[in-house]
């Protein structure tokens, strides 16, 4: 009896040993629908997908410290800034297969990592308080104009989506100009930054501000009714606006991943990435997370289509620059006293 207990206990304690034909995913995307998708992959290929989800910083730290002993094959996260910084530490290996290169536009990948879905960081305005003339040819850059004083809401500077947006502005306009821009934005804020992207949209709906800067899927989630009737009603009080349509296009970001340097199951991991870029998987992703598809030939969710699909996406800014200018972006925001 004692022996049996010892065996059971040891197997529980050490239950993380590798089995053949599996792929280990470290993910900071916490969608249940991602897990469903991995199950589909397992059904098709027989490759088991093991997942640990958590905060980016902690997952990265764990991968780095585990070093050559790490069992992590694939690291999936939201935001190109996250991926690019991790890449700059040399943690990924070349994971591009010809299939992947053919499917994904070159500004959304490099040789070590690839975008899987896209999201846009856009403006949400109150149609009652913002007139059409104000919106004409509106760019992110124009939000520095004093006429927006006390009318803008956006979340805190420690938020990675903000850091990436500002990094893209540094890439396009230079550090000094963007520094001035950030100072003006802080002057134009309706309140000290607080809450997540949805809280910004709600602030505009509630009349606390006139323009919110937020990611597209938050708005779609509210419209979907999955967050209750009131949130749906609130979302209908604001309208989306895609800036920079007459120049480089709206700021795009990605969710994506790469194969880790010491991945024990590299081939399975490549198969999983390729699977995530199939039409079937992309359709599943965009239907559940309200993101934009990475590949051609897949339609985004109805709610996103209603927001406008014909907008011009920024396809010239390499999303890798979000990592490159991340520390500059943070420095600029801190200097502007952006909380």
């Amino acid at each position, binding site marked *: 009896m004692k022996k049996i207990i010892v065996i059971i206990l040891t197997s*529980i*304690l*050490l*239950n*993380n*040993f590798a089995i053949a034909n599996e792929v*280990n995913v470290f993910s900071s*995307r*916490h*969608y*249940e629908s991602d897990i469903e998708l991995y199950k589909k992959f397992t059904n098709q290929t027989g490759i088991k997908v*093991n*997942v*640990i*989800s*958590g*905060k980016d*910083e*902690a997952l*990265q*730290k*764990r991968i780095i*410290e*585990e*070093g*050559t*002993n790490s*069992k992590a094959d694939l690291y999936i996260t939201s935001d190109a800034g996250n991926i690019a910084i991790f890449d700059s530490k040399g943690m990924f290996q070349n994971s591009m297969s010809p299939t992947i290169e053919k499917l994904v536009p070159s500004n959304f990948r490099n040789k070590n990592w690839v975008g899987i879905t896209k999201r846009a960081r856009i403006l949400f305005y109150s149609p009652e308080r913002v007139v059409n003339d104000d919106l004409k040819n509106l760019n992110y850059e124009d939000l520095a104009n004093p006429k927006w004083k006390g009318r803008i809401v956006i*979340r*805190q500077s*420690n938020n990675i989506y903000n850091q990436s947006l500002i990094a893209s502005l540094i890439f396009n306009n230079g550090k000094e100009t963007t520094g001035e821009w950030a100072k003006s934005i802080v002057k134009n804020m309706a309140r*000290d*930054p*607080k*809450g*997540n*992207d*949805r*809280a910004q949209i*709600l*602030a505009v*709906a*509630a*009349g*606390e501000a006139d323009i919110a800067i937020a990611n597209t899927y*938050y708005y779609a*989630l509210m419209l979907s009714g*999955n*967050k*209750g*009737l*009131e*949130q749906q*009603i*609130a979302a209908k009080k604001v309208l989306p606006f895609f800036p920079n349509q007459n120049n480089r296009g709206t700021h795009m970001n990605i969710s994506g991943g790469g194969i880790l340097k010491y991945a024990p199951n590299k081939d399975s991991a490549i198969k999983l990435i390729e699977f995530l870029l199939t039409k079937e998987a992309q359709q599943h992703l965009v239907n559940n997370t309200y993101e934009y598809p990475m590949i051609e030939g897949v339609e985004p969710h109805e709610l996103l289509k209603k927001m406008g699909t014909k907008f011009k996406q920024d396809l010239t800014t390499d999303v890798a620059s979000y990592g490159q200018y991340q520390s500059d972006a943070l*420095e600029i925001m*801190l200097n502007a006293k952006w909380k």
Partner: protein
Amino acid sequence: MGKKFNFWYISSLLISIMVAIPIVTVLLSFFEPTGDYYTILKNTFLTDYIYNSIFLLLGVLFLTFVIGVGCAYVVSFYTFPGVNFFKWSLILSFAVPAYIYAYSLNAFFENYGTAFTILNNLFGEGNYNAHIPKFDGILGAIIAISFSLFAYVYVLTRASFHYQSQNLIELGKNLGFSKKKSFFKIILPSARPAIVAGLSLVAMETLSDFGSVSFFGISTLTTGIYNAWISFDDLTLANRLSSYLLIFILGLFILENVSRRKAQFHTSSKGGFKSKSLIKLNGYKSFFAFTFCLIIFIISFLFPVSQMLYWTIIFPQHLANLNVGKLFFNTMLLVSLSSCLLIALAFISNYGNRVSKSKFLKMLNIFSISGYAIPGIILAVAFITFISWFDNQIINHFEIQSIKPFFIGSILGLVLVYFIRFYSLANNGIKSGYEKINYSIDESAYLLGYSKFKTFKNVHIPYLKNSILLISILLTIEIIKELPITLILRPFNFETFATKAYLFASQDLLEAAAAPSLLLIVIASFFILITSRHTLKE
């Protein structure tokens, strides 16, 4: 002298050293040079971090003092309708982790939140958003932490009142004091050690809170350490910030210990007290006492529970999708393994201290605050770093298999870090139980020819049965609620109620986080009820 280094001494020493490793690492780093990030941080945010930490601490201490002492006073000295219900129901707030309280607070008061919905349904459509107070930022964190921690103050203060209640009020009467004067001049000072002990526990938990401050986006020393270390890879700075935190906590720990010693002095002389007859409250006074307790009970427990229940009911699909059996099994697996280890080792260490009577061991014991001094999230990363350093430096030289897979991402690793985190709790519990056993009992046992081991097994363990039960339930509740360590160190595909709730919440699906949160609260409440029945009997 050779006799001194027996089994008990050595094991006690080893346990103390293991628990002390993180704290010593932190202290040593104080003398190392720091990186660039420190300069940036010092110029911009360091004062903010310290200011926020202090402000948060003072706010929480004030609230928990008023609520904890207020409730304890009312239920200990008076009778009014519902008093027996409140005696135990006020402890239920222990079941609600601060981060879940934070979710509820935000969801209820945000624009178009639950409060808005209620007003809309009651009074018809209107723009109520502007009139609903917003409890977010530092105010939100103070409220969330206070209502989930005030029970520390409440329980300890009540226990202190329990032993002295009637005499004090009568003493006041005899001196011709008014009730108010009796309260401030006699009752409050007499319970001071217990109150201070409760407040210092609250303070330690507050300073190491990560979940609710990061949810509300406040930068404290703890988030500062996290950023310095994990985002900026500046280990030295992280450690230096930790040592600031440590100085705070060391002070609190000493305060708590001194108070406890005084508290013992008070309670140990309980003989000769009259049995208590409580003062019966009538009319508006009774109504006032009842309302005060009811409001605290509603805010601390019913409010977060009903918010979670409300969501679970209107979005039942989230509960249906939850693999409750598996989550329960995982949670209980961690609870049982860790509690057994903690209690066993705390026992050995305390017994070792007792039989060896070594001053050195007693001093080492102070490092058991390690777990409290270093926030869970930092401790988890420290553990990973330590294992990886140990593996690279030592194990690799012998060219044997790496030990990392055994410790990182395994149940074993999780249990070990829980051990360091909660050792203080287990150790102090056993210690205070042991202090009540007179040394002469040990000596009688030896005279009867008992070996040290036999004394331990046949005398001490039965004697401390109640302490063991109480501590194991406290540990159970803490481990059920534990989040950051579990999140970082767990194996693949391993979820508990806490991690599940966190993962949903972090993708802005608080509705889906409601079901696991609710289950977590229900299970923790169940264990609290077992304990409270036990403590009420005492």
